[in-house]
């Protein structure tokens, strides 16, 4: 390995914050603290002995749950925070985007903000003058540039900020959750920008919650958990581990299940019978257990949810379910997973009145499961059953 093929080298970095017990930065408190011999703050360790390297030209993903330390790591890479221990070497010019439109001032006009923001990105006035036309055209804001920024809609502000940001001429980009804002059209612009960056062989570090973006763009990724690196590896490996970990922690906090029952229903339970992580050549089996307060013909329905969208639904109208009151009934369902791809899924179950088809009770996030597949050529939530063939 040559010495200069890295873009960022993180060596045994630790970071802790002193959190005051009582938020007040005054001299009196400092004095009182000293005289009482109490320090009045807590040392919160956010990163512990983290080491890794980002190579030149890599699209490197950093993922982790909220509070895992990934934002701190990002700010350390960006040179905004200083590590307590260890060192970070950056080989080349690095530009961080922690947020779009940093330094935007609502009292300045769009035009003035473009120049200010450009200066923060390292452009001087004549360079900005040359870029100005294309920035405004890309943001589609020609008519608004002499208005104050406070009169812009938030969408217009984001468009302007993004339009400036993509001009940044730099070797290494550090991006944080830029994808989280904006509508679908804007996200598409972001994705196009990422593709461009990849083609230009720029080094990119992306911090995100969006596992599909990780799988789509990253060449390598890192999963961080409680200030430690859990794994560094291929984006698929990291994204799958992240999704699986999320499922598990949701399981341990059981009461997130959202339940609502009408008086006719005494109870509605869903019990998973299969392991929660399974390959797509298996079936996911579960029982639905219900008890009625009055004798009433009912039917069940479930939907398998993926990212908040129903991927699959099935109701039991074709079956006569037992409906005597005062006794628990159990219904079993076996869901073959051969149509599912690697991803996390959730199960919503609803019980309906057979006569008027009105819901009597439901359980949202009644269970969740994680599917894995062996076929790396297939992506998305649904496992394609199609075939490629050459010619017509």
């Amino acid at each position, binding site marked *: 390995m040559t010495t200069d093929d890295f873009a960022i080298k993180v060596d045994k970095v630790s970071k802790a914050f002193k959190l005051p017990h009582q938020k007040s930065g*005054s001299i*009196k408190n400092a004095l009182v603290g000293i005289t009482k011999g109490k320090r009045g703050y807590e040392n919160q360790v956010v990163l512990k002995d983290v080491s890794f390297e980002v190579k030149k030209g890599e699209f490197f993903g950093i993922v982790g749950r909220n509070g895992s330390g990934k934002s701190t790591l990002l700010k350390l890479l960006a040179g905004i925070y*200083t590590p307590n221990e260890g060192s970070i070497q950056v080989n080349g010019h690095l530009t961080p985007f*922690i947020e779009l439109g*940093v*330094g935007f*001032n609502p009292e300045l006009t769009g035009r003035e903000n473009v120049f200010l923001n450009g*200066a*923060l990105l390292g452009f001087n006035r004549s360079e900005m003058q040359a870029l100005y036309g294309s920035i405004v055209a890309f943001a589609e804001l020609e008519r608004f540039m002499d208005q104050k920024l406070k009169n812009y809609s938030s969408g217009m502000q984001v468009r302007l900020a993004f339009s400036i940001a993509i001009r940044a001429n730099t070797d290494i980009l550090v991006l944080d959750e830029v994808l989280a804002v904006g509508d679908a059209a804007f996200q598409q612009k972001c994705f196009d920008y990422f593709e461009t960056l990849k083609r230009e062989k720029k080094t990119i570090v992306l911090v995100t919650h969006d596992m599909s973006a990780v799988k789509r763009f990253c060449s390598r990724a890192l999963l961080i958990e409680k200030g430690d690196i859990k794994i560094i590896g291929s984006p698929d490996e990291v994204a799958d581990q992240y999704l699986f970990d999320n499922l598990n922690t949701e399981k341990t906090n059981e009461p997130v299940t959202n339940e609502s029952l009408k008086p006719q229903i005494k109870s509605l339970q869903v019990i998973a019978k299969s392991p929660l992580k399974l390959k797509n050549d298996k079936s996911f089996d579960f029982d639905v257990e219900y008890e009625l307060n009055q004798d009433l013909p009912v039917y069940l329905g479930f939907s398998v949810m993926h990212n908040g969208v129903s991927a699959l639904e099935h109701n039991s109208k074709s079956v006569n379910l037992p409906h005597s009151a005062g006794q628990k009934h159990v219904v079993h369902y076996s869901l073959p997973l051969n149509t599912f791809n690697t991803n996390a899924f959730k199960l919503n179950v609803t019980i309906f009145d057979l006569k008027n088809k009105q819901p009597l009770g439901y359980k949202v996030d009644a269970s969740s499961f994680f599917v894995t597949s062996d076929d790396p050529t297939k992506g998305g939530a649904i496992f394609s059953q199609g075939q490629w063939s050459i010619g017509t």
Partner: protein
Amino acid sequence: MTKQNKALLSELVRTDFKLRYQGSVLGYAWSLLKPLLIFVILYVVFVRFLKLGDGVPHYPIYLLLGIVLWNFFAEMTQQSLGSIVGRGDLIRKIRIPRWIIVLSSSISAVINLLLNLVVVAVFMVINHVDVRFTIVILPLILIEVYLFALGISLFLSALYVKFRDIGYIWEVFLQAGFYLTPILYPLARITNLSFQKLIMINPMGQAIQDARYAVVTDQTITAHRLFNGGPYTLIPFAIILVLLVGGLAFFRKESKYFAENI
């Protein structure tokens, strides 16, 4: 300074200037009007009513120059004090050299000073003040005051990140400094020689008196005259040097943790 930093500095100064008089009808004119109005008040009370300046030639100019220099010092230190905290949004989200922020707020104060000096020049012409060759040392005195204010600004802006009390403390300090510096009164009015010497150890006292000597009248008690050119003459400069070096070191050390402490 790199090309990027220069561009950033000029853009920050521009923004400061645009935003300062945002929404006021007279706009930039206020940066001249404010010291002029204060001057008029002080002139009426201290020169007309109390006759403090009797015996000093061109006392109104003498007074105006002192006020302008002191205002510059007060404005620069007060603006710099809050500059790091005020730009917290930048510091927490982007990597820019922290000192640029202090420098940009100091430069807006310098611009104001230069505008005010134009007013002083106009009054000098109206008052028929003879311009002597000593005026050439005025730029050096201005640089001295700037460096003094810069050293203090570096300390204050870094301290203010952790202790917001500094804002109030510095206000009181400035108020005390205004009266302990011979701005309103000629130094000769203090009859106790030890007190005179004590006052002239203060770099602002020394600088204002030197500026008056250089620009308005040679009948000014300068530090050089007071200490007979002895080693005490150097004390104000030593204070400035210590503050500047100490301020730079302190600011450098603290600036690593600005982002997390703001």
